[in-house]
């Protein structure tokens, strides 16, 4: 009897993972209406579970922000404990002394209205407004880096598979496996260390923040250029950390697709190489990568935390670390929740895209093969 053959490598193994939602659709067949409803119900359930997990986690945290503030006031202004406590409870207009279940139901009720509460430390600002001010920058940098790496990686992987065992194939595959096994934050540190400090090619201190202060935001070439200038280092890191994944996945998916019968038949029918590559090989090889893209989106949003820290890019990750250090409970809760929502949306989009691309599901007219 045969030993079970493992899938081909870590990266190819990841290829096998379907997004959670695509499995839902798979179970229910290719129809459009019901699977979408199912997917949305599932998304809502995930949001509910995530919000409960964060609520439970954050209430377990040792050292409440009030106690920390009281300590701070006592040390800084030599106040007595009673005075400091009175002042601190005025500063935080949240009742941490209420029973935990009341806090929970209040939290869920507010959540249903899109209210994530107020930040503990930036008084008077809602958590939602803080997150909405930083999240777009992260999504912009992460999205740009991921999409660039996706398209270039697919092209390189396809070429590598077609020229299997050529020098180009070996160079691209080996390079891809090296770059994708080095953690992104180390690449970020290396960029700062080598190009920022040693060679002084990159003005890393000027590139901090999401845009240069004083510049007027708007759809001017000047502002867009400035945004790209500030986001270029995070984008570079997100690009580098994922390019290898797409190259290796696309390479092995293409190799598999090339062996399919319908490709042989298409060749026998005398179709042009270009048509076979795009409609027969490429289309099928790209399919598993689409659902992989949604999973990568979740991982890269997490990895962004440290990259933003290193480059001091004003995104949601920088804010998360600040909120953890300041024990800003509502902000931490909000960030976990909102990033999860982003991943869910990425999953939904990948799902819709998947059914559009896959000739076997979706509308009957979409089929090109068979």
């Amino acid at each position, binding site marked *: 009897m045969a030993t*079970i*053959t*493992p899938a081909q490598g870590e990266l190819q193994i990841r290829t096998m993972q379907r997004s959670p939602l695509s499995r839902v659709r798979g179970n229910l067949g290719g129809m459009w209406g019901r699977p979408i409803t199912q997917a949305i119900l599932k998304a809502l359930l995930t949001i509910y579970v995530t919000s409960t997990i964060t609520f439970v986690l954050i209430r377990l945290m040792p050292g409440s922000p009030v106690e920390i503030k009281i300590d701070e006031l006592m040390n800084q202004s030599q106040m007595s404990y009673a005075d400091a406590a009175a002042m601190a409870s005025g500063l935080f207009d949240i009742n941490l002394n209420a029973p935990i279940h009341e806090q929970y139901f209040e939290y869920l009720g507010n959540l249903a209205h899109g209210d994530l509460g107020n930040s503990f430390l930036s008084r008077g600002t809602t958590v939602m407004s803080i997150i909405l001010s930083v999240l777009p920058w992260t999504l912009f940098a992460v999205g740009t880096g991921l999409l660039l790496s996706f398209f270039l990686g697919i092209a390189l992987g396809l070429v590598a598979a077609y020229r299997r065992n050529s020098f180009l194939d070996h160079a691209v595959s080996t390079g891809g496996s090296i770059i994708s096994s080095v*953690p992104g934050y180390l690449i970020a540190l290396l960029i700062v260390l080598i190009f920022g400090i040693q060679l002084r090619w990159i003005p890393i201190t000027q590139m901090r923040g999401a845009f240069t202060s004083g510049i007027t935001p708007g759809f001017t070439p000047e502002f867009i250029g400035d945004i790209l200038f500030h986001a270029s280092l995070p984008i570079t890191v997100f690009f580098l950390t994922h390019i290898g994944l797409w190259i290796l996945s696309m390479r092995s998916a293409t190799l598999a697709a090339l062996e399919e019968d319908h490709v042989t038949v298409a060749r026998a029918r005398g179709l042009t190489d270009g048509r076979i590559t795009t409609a027969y090989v490429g289309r099928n090889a790209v399919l598993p990568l689409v659902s992989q893209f949604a999973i990568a989106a979740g991982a890269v949003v997490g*990895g962004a935390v440290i990259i933003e820290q290193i480059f001091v890019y004003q995104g949601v990750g920088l804010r998360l670390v600040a909120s*953890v250090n300041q024990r800003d409970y509502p902000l931490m809760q909000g960030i976990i929740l909102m990033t999860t929502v982003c991943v869910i949306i990425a999953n939904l989009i990948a799902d819709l895209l998947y059914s559009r691309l896959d000739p076997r599901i979706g509308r009957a007219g979409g089929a090109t093969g068979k």
Partner: protein
Amino acid sequence: MTAAAGLVDRRDVSRIPAPLAGLVEFLRMMSRKPVGLIGLIGVLFFLFLAYVAPLIVPLQDQVDVTAIYAKPSFAHPLGTDFQGRDVVNQIVYGGGDIITTAILAALFSTLIAITFGSIAATVGGRIDALILAITDVALTIPQLILLIVIAAIFRPASFFALAVILALLQWPALLRQIRAQVLSLKERDFVEAARSLDLGLLHIIFREMLPNMRSYIVIHFIIAMTLAIYAQAAIMFLGLVPLSGKNWAIMLYFAYNQGALFFKDSFFYLMGPIMAIALFQLSLVWLASGLEDVFNPRLRS
């Protein structure tokens, strides 16, 4: 087993004792693909560096204010840190903790994934749906963000606690793959035969299926180690783990927070831990890829 049959082709190794012959053949097959061999040598080197070298090299952790951020010299091949301590010495002493935590985390997450993955696949029905639903939710939450918050809350002060937290976050992806493997094995004749002999669920999972997934599990164990190293180095770099002492990631934390990143002279100080982590990760990935070629007869040739 074809794996065993494959071991004795081509060359006559019958004169060498059996276990040794297997090892010789394994090395011969690994060396056919240079990447796998480089990975194996790399992993062995780092294991030696982390667990054997500290027994030979004496610890030098006394603060030397006269030699802060010293350039590389004969006495300090990679220079010194912000307290004048030798960087090479810290690299030697700083691997054990990280690798031990990674091995423990990989062990725990693999155990969770195997247990619940095979239960889901063999029992099926509602249990399967429930386990899968939990897995899907766990896969959706950005893991590193959740890990940062959890680390900040629980401040895991021991490697064991840290490994448990890491394992609790990284099992879902592996579980789905184990489940898929078991689902396909379930339909095989020998499992069918065991079932008709009424050998019981535990016997079928542990005696019939697991041996057939051995290579798969070994490779996943290695990949789980890389995930654990990635995640633990990340939270240590952010200063969220109250572990003191010598450790590659904590070296990076100090280098970054003491501003050494911005000193021209401390290039080698930073390159030490960066390269140690990056090369160990690369060795693991390449070892996994080499093992895959050895285990997978389809990919040989």
